[in-house]
Each structure stands twice: as C-alpha cells, then as structure tokens.
C-alpha cells in the first residue's frame, strides 16, 4: 500500500520534527534557570608592569580566585566557559576589556574550585595609561548547551589599582 520510500520519508520527517521540538524545549527550559553563583578574586602580586618596545603598557600578575559555578549547570549544559576580564576606561577608549584568564568547566562536579595562577594573557593597553589606573575585575561566563541557545552572564568582583610606576625596567 505504502512504498518503502514513502514510509522512510514519513519516519524521517516525524523524527526531524520531534528532534527539533525536543531541542527547542530544552533550550526554552534553560531560560528558567536562575543561577546564584559566588566568586571572589584577589590580585596576589604584580609580576611585571612595564612599557613594551612598541609603546604599550603591559601587566602580568598572579591572581587568587575562588568560585562556585554549580548553579549555572542544567541537564542541557555541555560546558561553561568562564573568564576573568580586566575592565577599565582611558581618555581615548570608553571601554577596555581584556581577558586575563579563562577556563572551561565541563562537569557540574568540577564547577566549584579555587586557583592561584599567573594571568594567562597579559593586560596590554592601547597606549600608556595604566600607571595608577583603577581596574575592575569582572567574571564572565558563557553557558554552552548540548543544543540550543547559548547564555552569557557576568558579575563584577573587585577593583584594584595598578602601581603608579613601572615595576620592571623595560
């Protein structure tokens, strides 16, 4: 009565529709997750603060961070990409955001941790504005789902001021 091709076509269409509905539902439910995470960061030491050869300020430091990201995870979460950004403004730039450190958390069990690490990426300014500059440290996260919409968020943590003069002779 119905050919094999017709049956295969019907099965494939229904499967596709079901899959799409499940993906959409998973993504939709994610929106109801209201995370309450805690984090703390502290600048332990400025390792190097100098002016590079091309004329831009460069800072490397050691950070001590603790955070609890478990409330960001739902069953539709594949990984959480978390990074700490130094945010500040200068005369020429209304906003500077520089990522200092990032980490990928793949399992909920490993979402609460403490680290003391040197910065993964140096804080390099467009210019020489960093002496005595007040810099805000903001924790950003990016929830990447198993399927569906990606969710971003951020939380300002602490501020710190850079020294008034370079600590290393360039």
């Amino acid at each position: 009565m119905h050919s094999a091709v017709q049956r295969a076509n019907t099965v494939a269409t229904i499967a596709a529709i079901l899959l799409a509905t499940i993906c959409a539902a998973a993504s939709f439910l994610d929106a109801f997750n209201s995370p309450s995470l805690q984090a703390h960061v502290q600048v332990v030491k400025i390792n190097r603060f100098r002016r590079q050869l091309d004329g831009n300020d460069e800072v490397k430091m050691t950070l001590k961070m603790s955070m609890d990201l478990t409330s960001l995870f739902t069953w539709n979460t594949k990984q959480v990409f978390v990074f700490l950004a130094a945010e500040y403004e200068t005369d020429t730039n209304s906003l500077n955001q520089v990522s200092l450190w990032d980490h990928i958390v793949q399992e909920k069990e490993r979402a609460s941790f403490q680290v003391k690490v040197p910065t993964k990426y140096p804080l390099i300014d467009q210019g020489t504005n960093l002496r005595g500059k007040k810099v805000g440290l903001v924790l950003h996260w990016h929830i990447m789902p198993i399927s569906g919409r990606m969710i971003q968020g951020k939380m300002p943590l602490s501020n710190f001021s850079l020294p008034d003069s370079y600590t290393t002779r360039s």
Partner: protein
Amino acid sequence: MDRIKFLGDVKIRPTLIQLLNLGMIICSALMIWKGLMCITGCESPVVVVLTGSMEPGFKRGDILFLHMNKEPIRAGEIVVYNVDGRDIPIVHRVIKAHERRDTGEIDILTKGDNNQVDDITLYSGGQLWLNRHHIIGRAIGYLPYVGYLTIIMTEMPIVKYLLIGVLALLVITSEE
C-alpha cells in the same frame, strides 16, 4: 512511426508540470534562506564549524546560528569573521575589546578556545585588530552534528553529485 509521435505528444505536459514543481521547491527554499538572512541581519545566518579550534565546545560538523545587530561587541562573545582576502569565515571568541570614545569604533582580538595563541597571525598582513566590519555575525545558538553532511559534501564532491542526482530522479519519476 505513428505510435512514437503519439508518445512524444503525451509526455510533454506532465514533464513540464514536474519541472514547475521542482522550480517551486527550489524557490521556496531560496525564499526561506533569504528570509532568514533578513531576520537575523547576517549574510549567512547558519554556519558549519569546520575546525577543532573551539573544542570541546564546538566540534567539526556542528552548526551555529548567527545573529547580527547594532549591539556593541564585547569580550566573551563568539563571533564569526572574515579576514580580508580569505574566503572561509572563522568562528572564535573575543578575548580583548577596546572601544574608542570618539568614533565608537571597536578593536577586537579573538582566539579559539582550543588554540594556544590568539588569532593575530590569522589577520591579514600587519593587522593587529579586528573591527566591526570584519564581523559577519555573533553565535547565539547551536545544534550538534547536523552540519556534518555539508562537510562531507564539500570534501567529497562525489557525494554531492550523487545526492542531487538521486533527488532529481525522485522528483522527476514520482507521480504527484
């Protein structure tokens, strides 16, 4: 002789109808694609991940849904950009952003999550930063595996021709 001529006459109209159906299907698909382009504001609202530079988040063969609007580009966003002179768009994350006070123009530096170094070597010539006009879109959604078919079709063109051939055959030979 007569019979052959008769057969020739009868076949024309159904064939034309079949061709029209094919044309309608192609046009509908194009309309949906162009419509998506308008809604999302990007030239290519859906891209396939081609490399492993964003693993474990995105694997080869996953597809990303893109969106582009006037919102400023900020650190942490996953953007798709074209380097001047290259065809293939790159999907990486913004790790540094500097926004100029006077022009509102933004300088960004990107890096793949799975790469050791940032993308500065990928930008053309002595270019140090990406600007807004390089960005095709921001990734807002994601589906795994679906794009693998596109990768297979690009890397082994024989599959593409086979698929088109089979589809064309099915449309032409199927009865309404």
